[in-house]
């Protein structure tokens, strides 16, 4: 499985994401600067966490307009896998690849800690290594992770099984405790928790590792 990590000005989990991808897939991802207009030939594109453009104006808003995002959009339409974590999730909603928006945490404070997540759907490549209903622990670290969409959208994505991770407790005020969603075809995942921070025991847990392993498996199976 070949992967790429997009680097925006102010991304700060890009290197962490690269380490996780290298650990699990056995090959280093291509690091792609946001000014590029073409993507290398890869299977998985990761949008990392951080504070791209300082989170100024709105989180993810300025990055969503980066030249590379047009290429990411096309790749997503062609069915390539796109994983947006934290700021990457915010960029995906701002780009329109995923519905809804991420607002300031209800408690207004930045929150960094391990949180319990329920895996709601294991029919995606990202979640195939988990069991439905399983509770996993993955760290969050964000100021704007409060997921918002209007009622109709929420009902629709719930009905289509597109809510794949849900907080097992209230973390940031997100509607219906949504922590991660996929697009209609299931090849684009946005999530606030950081799976790349939970890939080896020294980090305090390994529950994030299976997300990457699931992706690798999808290519073995294919």
């Amino acid at each position, binding site marked *: 499985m070949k992967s790429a990590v997009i680097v925006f000005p102010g991304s700060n989990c890009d290197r962490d994401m690269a380490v996780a991808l290298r650990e699990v897939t056995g090959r280093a991802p291509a690091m792609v600067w946001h000014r590029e207009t073409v993507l290398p030939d890869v299977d998985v594109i990761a949008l990392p966490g951080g504070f791209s453009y300082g989170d100024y104006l709105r989180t993810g*808003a300025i990055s969503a307009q980066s030249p590379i995002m047009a290429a990411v959009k096309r790749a997503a339409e062609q069915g390539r896998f796109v994983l947006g974590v934290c700021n990457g999730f915010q960029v995906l*909603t701002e780009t329109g690849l995923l519905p809804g*928006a991420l607002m300031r945490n*209800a408690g207004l404070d930045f929150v960094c800690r391990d949180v319990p997540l329920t895996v709601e759907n294991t029919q995606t490549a990202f979640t195939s290594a988990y069991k439905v209903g399983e509770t996993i622990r993955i760290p969050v670290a964000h100021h704007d992770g*409060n997921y*918002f969409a209007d009622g109709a959208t929420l009902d629709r994505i719930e009905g289509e099984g597109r809510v794949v991770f849900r907080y097992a407790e209230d973390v940031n*005020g997100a509607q219906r405790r949504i922590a991660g969603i996929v697009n209609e075809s299931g090849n684009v995942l946005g999530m606030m928790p950081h799976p790349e921070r939970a890939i080896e025991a020294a980090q305090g847990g390994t529950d994030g590792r299976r997300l990457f392993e699931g992706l690798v498996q999808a290519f073995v199976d294919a």
Partner: protein
Amino acid sequence: MKAKVYVTLKNGVLDPQGKAICHALESLGFDEAQDVRQGKFIELELADGTSEARIEEMCRKLLANTVIENYRIEIA
């Protein structure tokens, strides 16, 4: 020329910041505060002759997220 853009949350979108401000006002003894909504106020310094349509485009493309926000433009 100058233009002002006001970006506000749509009705029905929860405003955690506004709520927190309202709460803080109450705890400071400002019982008159009943509800607070916080938006953005963006002042643009533009090349003379920039059309309103063009500013609209800036709003739609960048300054506001129309999933959750409304905007209003005022040309000074």
